[in-house]
């Protein structure tokens, strides 16, 4: 964790849950390292709950390292990657060459079946503080130049993004007494489906504190724009000025866009024993002495000591529209990308891509079909589809408002959505997790069936459970499942009124909670089902990866052809999400796919040989190594497979 000391949040918590459902590590490790667990949006409904935690950097690092080093068959090698080893492409995949390994900083090589690049902010990274700039991936680390040149030479479209980090403060120099305190949840809610509880005692958790900027900070920023390269470029840049820094704005950006108001600053602990405070909301790139002035202008921070100044980073990213939905690049076969290299921001977004890239890097080596999460199945699917279909021109961040099927894709049911597929199709889920998910799924089905079978009139229900106020206008009988939707109702109340058969469900706390959520969302989920089905059908209609949209014989306007060619949608579903594509164009494309499909069916009648049988070229061990490397990359996006020496 090289930036904020926290994991999860609204939308991001959904991603952590989904990564966990696929047996990715970050959720479990957060449950071993958090110092302040808090579910955001508690009062807004379980579909938009945001699981979040302040995480102890040291504990996170140690636990993650332990997990990785104890993973069977995994070899960990720490070195910087300077170049890629390339060879002839496989004939019937798109791509002009194939990757077969990497060249390390000392000139040695590692041969591999597939490679995942998770370069974070290291590709040609450049740090800005005030008017000074120097090449670095993050403070104290060398950037990756050779690799950036290799990628550019291979023909990848490269863009430039900016991000920033706030100064760090000494905890013992802050006066918390007058500040708004935010205490943690008691009991804390774990991230992982496997965790019954988190490691820390609820009462031992640390608090966060809220303070605000005032006009003085604004004055300092405005008076010193000429000393602020990072911001000057942002506000003056021909193309960047409007979009950049919206999702992760610096203090400067906030002050310039929304002047004359207070801006929140959250003071977050970096760890249980740590004396470092992370002031979230104070990301800035002023010269250090001016940053100190800004800090001292803020209530509670009048005497605060700055341990390290904030700084901006500018780095290379690759247009993610050059990737397939499995995150493999179209240009170089078996080369996968995940994290900030694809234009995203945040640990959770990186982890989500990491788990998908890892699974697919492995499946690809084994010659199996790719593992794709659809938009209808998870936030992971929305994230990757948005990136690979629409691209991005500022660091992409997950929001629940990006998700069409928000009522169905909830944090509580990520296991039901993904764990089964992960086990059966990807082989990335442990037996224990799979069995737990199977058990939960069966219990949910039993519970819902039992609740639906209990049907009484409204007056009878009013007698049975007087604590739930029912509207009396309804004539038809109501089921216990209907009753459970009412805010005052829960499984405990129902089981008290009707012990048989409900008692056994009510005793299982997690199941009871999930049944109540299922009841609340049933109407919406059923209603969305049709639409989900439609999207799935459209997503099942794949477009050939190497399609030349300017050459194909279909009735499409030049404008539509240009859009299709630059966005490279992989399915008809993706086509329909590209702005400006008409229904007529979609139908014409459908016709084209149908035509291709027929030809493909004909071809299939001939016997074919599978060229990529596992074990032919690579050992089983190599394959799992690739997978594990990917899992590793998903947890610490800035510092793994492609690694600069520490």
């Amino acid at each position, binding site marked *: 964790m090289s930036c904020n000391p926290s994991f999860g949040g609204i939308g991001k918590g959904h991603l952590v849950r989904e990564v966990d459902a696929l047996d990715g590590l970050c959720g479990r490790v957060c449950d071993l390292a958090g110092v302040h667990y808090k579910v955001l949006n508690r009062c807004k409904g379980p579909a938009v709950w945001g699981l979040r935690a302040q995480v102890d950097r040291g504990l996170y690092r140690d636990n993650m390292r332990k997990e990785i080093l104890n993973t069977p068959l995994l070899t960990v090698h720490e070195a910087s990657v300077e170049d890629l080893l390339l060879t002839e492409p496989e004939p019937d995949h798109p791509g002009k060459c194939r990757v077969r390994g990497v060249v390390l900083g000392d000139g040695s090589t590692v041969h591999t079946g597939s490679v995942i690049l998770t370069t974070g902010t290291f590709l040609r990274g450049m740090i800005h503080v005030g008017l000074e700039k120097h090449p670095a991936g993050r403070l104290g680390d060398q950037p990756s130049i050779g690799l950036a040149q290799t990628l550019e030479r291979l023909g990848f479209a490269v863009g430039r993004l900016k991000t920033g980090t706030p100064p760090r403060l000494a905890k013992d120099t802050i006066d918390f007494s007058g500040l708004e305190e935010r205490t943690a949840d008691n009991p804390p809610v774990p991230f992982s489906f496997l965790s019954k509880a988190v490691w820390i005692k609820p009462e031992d958790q640390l608090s966060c504190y809220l303070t605000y900027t005032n006009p003085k900070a604004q004055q300092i920023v405005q008076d010193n724009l000429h000393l602020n390269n990072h911001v000057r470029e942002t506000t003056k840049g021909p193309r960047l000025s409007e979009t950049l820094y919206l999702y992760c704005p610096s203090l400067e950006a906030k002050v310039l866009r929304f002047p004359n108001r207070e801006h929140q600053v959250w003071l977050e602990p970096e760890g249980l024993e740590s004396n470092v405070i992370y002031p979230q909301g104070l990301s800035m790139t002023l010269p250090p002495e001016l940053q100190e002035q800004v800090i001292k202008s803020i209530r509670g921070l009048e005497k605060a000591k700055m341990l390290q100044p904030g700084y901006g980073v500018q780095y290379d990213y690759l247009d993610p529209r050059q990737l397939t939905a499995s995150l493999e690049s179209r240009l170089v076969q078996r080369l996968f990308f995940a994290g900030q290299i694809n234009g995203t921001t945040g640990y959770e977004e990186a982890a989500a891509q990491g788990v998908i890239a890892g699974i697919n890097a492995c499946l690809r080596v084994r010659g199996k079909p790719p593992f794709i999460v659809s938009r209808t199945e998870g936030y992971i699917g929305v994230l990757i589809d948005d990136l690979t279909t629409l691209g991005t021109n500022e660091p992409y961040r997950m929001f629940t*408002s990006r998700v069409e099927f928000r009522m169905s894709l909830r944090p509580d049911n990520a296991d039901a959505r993904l764990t089964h597929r992960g086990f059966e199709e990807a082989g990335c889920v442990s037996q224990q997790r799979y069995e737990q998910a199977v058990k939960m799924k069966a219990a949910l089905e039993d519970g819902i069936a039992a609740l639906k079978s209990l049907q009484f009139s409204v007056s009878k229900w009013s007698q049975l459970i007087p604590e739930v106020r029912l509207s009396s206008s309804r004539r038809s009988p109501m089921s216990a499942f209907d009753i459970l939707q009412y805010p005052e109702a829960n499984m405990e109340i129902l089981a008290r009124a009707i012990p048989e058969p409900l008692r056994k469900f009510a005793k299982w706390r997690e199941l009871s909670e999930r049944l109540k959520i299922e009841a609340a969302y049933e109407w919406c989920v059923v209603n969305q089902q049709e639409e989900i089905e439609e999207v799935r059908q459209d997503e099942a209609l794949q477009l050939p990866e190497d399609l030349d949209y300017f050459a194909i014989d279909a009735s499409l306007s030049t404008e539509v052809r240009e859009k299709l060619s630059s966005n490279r949608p992989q399915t008809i579903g993706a086509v329909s999400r590209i702005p400006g594509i008409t229904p007529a164009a979609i139908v014409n494309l459908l016709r084209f796919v149908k035509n291709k499909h027929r030809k493909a069916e004909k071809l299939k009648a001939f016997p074919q040989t599978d060229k990529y049988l596992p074990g032919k070229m690579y050992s089983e061990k190599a394959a799992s190594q690739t997978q594990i490397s990917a899992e590793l990359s998903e947890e610490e996006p800035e510092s793994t497979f492609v690694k600069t020496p520490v």
Partner: protein
Amino acid sequence: MALRGALSAAGRRWAQQRLCCTARGDTIFAVSSGHGRCGVAVIRTSGPGSRGALRSLTGRPELPPPRVLALRRIRDPATAEPLDRGLVVWFPGPQSFTGEDCAELHVHGGPAVVSGVLRALGRLPGLRPAEPGEFTRRAFHRGKLDLTAAEGLGDLIHAETEAQRRQALRQMEGELGRLYQRWSETLTQALAHLEAYIDFSEDDNVEEEVLSQVDAAVRALEQELGAHLQDGRRGELLRGGVRAVIAGPPNVGKSSLLNLLCRRPAAIVSPVAGTTRDVVEVSLNVTGYPVVLSDTAGLRDATDPVEREGVSRARDRLQRADLVLAVLDATAVPAEPAGLGAAVGSLVPPAAPCILVLNKADLLGGDTGALRAACARGPPVPPATLLSCKTGDGIDRLLELLGQQLAQLCGDPLAGSPSLTQSRHSQHLGDCAAALARYGRHRARDLGLAAEQLRLARRHLGRITGHVGAEDVLDIIFRDFCVGK
């Protein structure tokens, strides 16, 4: 190769869908015989509700034998009012055009019959008007689309959507379009603010009061929509009809004609030339056709800047008119065809359907024979009549001419099918209003569910005004709030 693997996976799904194709999903309907004047219109349904729809509209429990034409009386199931006698066909899936259960109703092609049947279908549970290209997409998903058929169909759908787009654009220019557009903006803004509250409020500066603003906006919109839907069902105020424009030189009695036709003093009349400066618009029902009649400023080279603007608006209306009522002073026109034709030609854009009204006939006195003959002559003189707005003489003949022109216009294939568009619109507006009502119910309990209702409402409205994606919503969020970390 990758393509082969991918497509065969898709193929497997098709096979699965073929097995269960009638098990689920909603049912769509549309006029499938193309729009415009025709003896017979074919209305088609596709989906599991086709069976029930056919039973409801024929009022019989038994279906005709599959794929055999049967003569049936067609009634509106809600009112039992007979709509038509026509031929019906039952195509049980999978042996149908789309692979789903389908029904076809071959009815008389008049707009009243067609829109009556469409309205009746729209009121059945589980049925909704088809979106452009939707039949073809369904056929495609069920693997029913034969390539040669698709070749033709693609063009047909292209034409269909192009026509609908033109129609939609045309409507969007009018009052109705502006109204829908405003609703759409209100709703998108409300949704964006609610989404901001969900995605940001706890860590950022999104204040609680945003919610009460959203509530107020939704409540106001719900009421407005409800009123509009009520209104739309009353005959006289049908909107989005034929746009007829009254045009002519100043002081020939254009405003008097408007008042005469709508039987109330909708426009100010005075003997002073140039009284009417802005466009005055009234909705009328003329012999069963909805008409939006506009009175415009007299066409002359005005010096007064306000009047000059009025004249420019009048010319703008004329350019977009479906039908022009050209008004001339009967006492000041040449009584021979060539001269009359030239007088009209100087007013009306070429090729615009036109009726010539020679007003102030009461002042003619004496011999009107030559003028009457010139009126009846035909080209270059458009259909014409003498009229006295003062006495009302000649109004019957004018209404007769109007009726003929409207029949011709509404039957014109280029005019699209307003009835189809209207029924689609009112259905989507109804669904939108229902979703807004559910917003209120969920609001206190679960903000996510409440937001979902606004999304649904937005989607229904979007079927009329155009799609709004997540990025557009995010744009509003980041425009209106200082959020993000």
